[in-house]
């Protein structure tokens, strides 16, 4: 299952909650304001590093660029909208709105 998270991690509990439910190996897609979770040096970095131990973690490129996020936590993979679609081809989708 592809868990999709679109909220910033320091003001919203949705990433933490999604990670609690998602099973090892389930990919996590950070999109819209969710991409802030991949920022290096943020207080959420530990959460993402833990997530990377159990999940492939993706960020949506257009949302990363929009927000001027230049330094992403190592191991986080960038996908464009085509890559987003590819993830959806491979997995059923759980939008963690």
């Amino acid at each position, binding site marked *: *299952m592809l868990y999709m998270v679109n909220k910033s991690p320091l003001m919203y509990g949705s990433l933490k*909650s999604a990670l609690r*439910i*998602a099973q090892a190996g389930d990919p996590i897609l950070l999109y819209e304001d969710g991409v802030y979770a991949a920022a290096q040096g943020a207080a959420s970095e530990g959460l993402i590093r833990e997530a990377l131990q159990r999940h492939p973690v993706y960020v949506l490129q257009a949302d990363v660029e929009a927000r001027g996020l230049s330094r992403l936590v190592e191991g986080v993979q960038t996908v464009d909208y085509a890559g987003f679609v590819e993830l959806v081809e491979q997995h*059923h*989708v*759980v*939008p*963690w*709105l």
Partner: protein
Amino acid sequence: MAQKVAVLMRKAPYGSVYTAEGLRSIMGIGVFELDISVIFVDDGVYALVKGQNPAALDMKPLGDSFPMLSEFGVTRFYVHEPSLRERGLTPADLVMEAELLDDEGVARALKESGVILPF
């Protein structure tokens, strides 16, 4: 075989329309040969709390509508037990019986449905 759908309720009622519309969507699509389960996680568990009375808000109460979904053929209700506990609630506080699930149980319930409708 009917397509399986999990309606995933994660939001609190009344502050926004999602609980009410999640409920309405179940009644709306439930008559069309879909195999629907309802999963309450995070603030979604508040939807099932007994004694809701939004009269002063001039809104309609939502809680008691969930048990009536059985009339639409919806009988599988799951509640994420940790979400309940973190909110100081027990199954006795809820308007209906529902199967309590742990984290893994919720993941499994989601996986059993190809389609997740989040509200």
